[in-house]
């Protein structure tokens, strides 16, 4: 989250686990814009993103103790709660529309990671590591993670069999892990 340091976020999450509503409000004010941005990007539907955002904060209220009992990166945890929820909604929607034309258009590939202005060291590091992968694999990883595309979407986009796509992503992920090794 851009406007609060990690320590402050961890403190707020610990207070939320103690059912401190003022801390919850402060966290909401600080983090709702980023989490809403994630919902909008993945769901591409403002109304659904609004519903999702509320669900996400309900999960944060109930689940803050799970973060507070671990040592971690609070903004990554919050982002993961949001992304997970949005992805679940996408996959449910997908199941509902199975057999019909998906209501969701394949997104145009957004600018690749190298075009993004990422200021943090972590951002530069992952960009650097993505840059070492075969370009299509790096892009497929980004499309899955940031745009919510499925194996099927990706295999159609790159015109390769589903299993091949899955292999691309698995190999790409393992290469990424090796490149980012200090995190693990």
């Amino acid at each position: 989250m851009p406007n609060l340091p990690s320590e402050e976020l961890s403190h707020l999450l610990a207070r939320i686990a103690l059912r401190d509503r003022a801390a919850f409000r402060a966290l909401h004010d600080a983090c709702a814009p980023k989490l809403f941005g994630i919902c909008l990007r993945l769901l591409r539907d403002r109304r659904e993103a609004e519903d999702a955002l509320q669900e996400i904060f309900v999960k944060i209220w109930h689940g803050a103790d799970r973060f507070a009992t671990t040592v971690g990166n609070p903004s990554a945890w919050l982002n993961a709660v949001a992304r997970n929820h949005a992805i679940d909604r996408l996959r449910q929607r997908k199941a509902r529309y199975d057999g019909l034309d998906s209501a969701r258009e394949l997104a145009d590939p957004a600018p690749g990671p190298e075009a993004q202005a990422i200021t943090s060291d972590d951002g530069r590091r992952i960009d650097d590591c993505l840059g070492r992968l075969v370009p299509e694999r790096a892009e497929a990883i980004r499309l899955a993670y940031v745009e919510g595309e499925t194996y099927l979407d990706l295999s159609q986009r790159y015109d390769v069999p589903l299993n091949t796509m899955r292999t691309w992503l698995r190999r790409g992920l393992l290469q990424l892990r090796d490149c980012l090794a200090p995190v693990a």
Partner: protein
Amino acid sequence: MMLSDDDIALAGEYVLGAMDRAERSAIEARMRSDSAFAAEIARWELRLDPMLAEIPPEAPPALAWEALEDRLFAPPKRPAWAWFGFAGGLSTLLLGAVLWFGAPMQRQQGPLWISDLVSSDGQVRLAALYDEQRGEMRVSVGGDAPQQGRDFELWLIAGEAAPVSLGVMPRSGAAAMPIPDDLRALMAGATLAITDEPAGGSPQGRATGPVVALAPLRRI
């Protein structure tokens, strides 16, 4: 236990999110029983998180907070001060309760709940064992004691209610505390927390100091 590269890649795939719903559910089931696998998923969440930096924040809908507040907190419609009063009364009651040391734990058949509270720097540790049948909790305190003029206070967090004080912890060693009847029903699945409070415990009856450690009560 070491995970194979296959499992590490699978955990990464889950975080990537490209799989269908059935496969996601299967992985979530595995996470619940395989803590090494669950930890790998948490690592992937950390590794990939910087990719989200490209997503710009967006102003959430107007009244998002009010709607959320309504949804989570509306039913009791109780002003905040009423909670403090309620918790305050209870806390005094509990602080008055006798803490006794070294009482032998009798044999019992009822369910037991444990909670391991450890501060993030590992310096403060408290283990709690709750005997459901006897309605008694025993705690054992280790590691750093609170600073002079401060005490550690133990809180019960259950559901939506404000934390309820279970009392001030001894500076070290063990203590046994009876859990009042009205709290016993809340113990299952609740969370315990330790806060750093003025000597004798929070005067307001609600947690005021920094949270030192927090952990759920788990059935054993």
